[in-house]
């Protein structure tokens, strides 16, 4: 890996300033970025660690809204969100493996927007708000395709705000070698409105399955999506599963998530 200057600010204001340097890149838990740098797919001149900023860590709940600091590791979310938002805590507790969950963070996962990552599904289905060093971005506007987000140069995610749904669940179809999603569904229901977010399936990254949402808003049961086919055109096809297989999994995993949410 190419060498770089390492800086570790202790406040968000310092981090924002450090990110103005030429070739600066934010580093959160590093569970993707460090491997990427080893392969020389990324070679930042300056790494700005976000792991020493207290104001970007922790889980807090106020009424029906849960806020997670962007630099909070998955293992902490798995524990601290368990009471207020168990579906999201379960998602966090199923990412990677225990050692990855000690370091990897929600902010890092969202900024990277891997097409098979778990958090984008939970954030999009929950209609969460991504809070950054500059503004607030609705989840519907944040994810913009494969490894692409609404974030601008030097912009840092500081927190994610989740309205807590009445019922929710995440059904993950594990790709056991990578521990990412082969195709997974996060279903969230608030009142009679249902949002379904699918990760691992599309070449454009996480997406809302609107046909599924319509069917489930009318009838919140696994049967409602039986036989409903997702469009296979934009699906990922690889040695782990064809486009048609992933399209079929969209309905299957959504039905499983609904069953879990009703339990």
């Amino acid at each position, binding site marked *: 890996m190419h060498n770089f200057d*390492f800086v*570790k600010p202790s406040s968000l204001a310092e981090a924002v300033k450090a990110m103005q340097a030429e070739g600066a890149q934010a580093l959160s838990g*590093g569970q993707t970025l*460090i491997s990427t740098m080893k392969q020389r797919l990324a070679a930042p001149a300056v790494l700005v660690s976000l*792991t020493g900023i207290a104001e970007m860590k922790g889980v807090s709940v106020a009424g029906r809204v849960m806020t997670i600091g962007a630099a909070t590791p998955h293992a902490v979310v798995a524990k601290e969100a368990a009471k207020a938002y168990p579906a999201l805590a379960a998602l966090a507790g199923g990412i990677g493996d*225990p050692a990855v969950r000690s370091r990897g963070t929600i902010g890092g996962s969202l900024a990277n927007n891997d097409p098979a990552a778990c958090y984008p599904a939970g954030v999009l289905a929950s209609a969460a708000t991504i809070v950054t060093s500059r503004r607030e971005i609705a989840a519907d506007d944040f994810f913009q395709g494969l490894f692409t987000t609404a974030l601008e140069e030097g912009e840092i995610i500081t927190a994610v705000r989740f309205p807590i749904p009445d019922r929710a669940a995440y059904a993950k179809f594990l790709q056991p070698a990578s521990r990412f999603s082969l195709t997974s569904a996060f279903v969230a229901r608030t009142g009679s409105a249902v949002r379904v977010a699918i990760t691992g399936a599309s070449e454009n990254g996480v997406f809302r399955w609107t046909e599924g949402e319509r069917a489930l808003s009318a009838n919140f049961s696994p049967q409602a999506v039986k036989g409903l086919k997702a469009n296979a055109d934009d699906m990922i096809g690889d040695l782990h599963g064809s486009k048609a297989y992933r399209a079929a999994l969209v309905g299957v995993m959504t039905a499983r998530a609904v069953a879990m949410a009703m339990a």
Partner: protein
Amino acid sequence: MTKVSMTVNGRAVSGDVEGRTLLSTFLREGLALTGTHVGCDTSQCGACVVHVNGAPVKSCTVFALDLEGATIRTIEGMANADGSLSPLQQAFQDHHGLQCGFCTPGMVMSSAALLAENPRPTPQEVRAYLDGNICRCTGYHNIVKAVLAASGQDVSAVAAE
């Protein structure tokens, strides 16, 4: 080069490192603690797991400079004060929880983190927790047995399946 200081196995240590120096490199080359093994260097295999402030971390996928002031425990810090094996290490020996031994430091460190969090895990919980630790000898059954034995559970009926 930048100076980094941390506490490793109870000892205050420091050294000069580059930005790109990984914790695994600092431990092995800077401190000559070669018990921490680097198997894959891609955070898949878990041979390099150590404890950072009590939590299991893949030392090949964290920069030394990011751990300024941290408390680290490696496999060298697992034995009892008199040098004898800790109950978990002894259980690995008693139940043949290692074959070639390459993955063992990571297996022991991950298992110790599990037992600290969950003192009497079920076999399924042990297997789930060791998801990120790969044994290329495929000696998993006896590793699980060793962890269960170290937790004080009777494993006389647990056979290799």
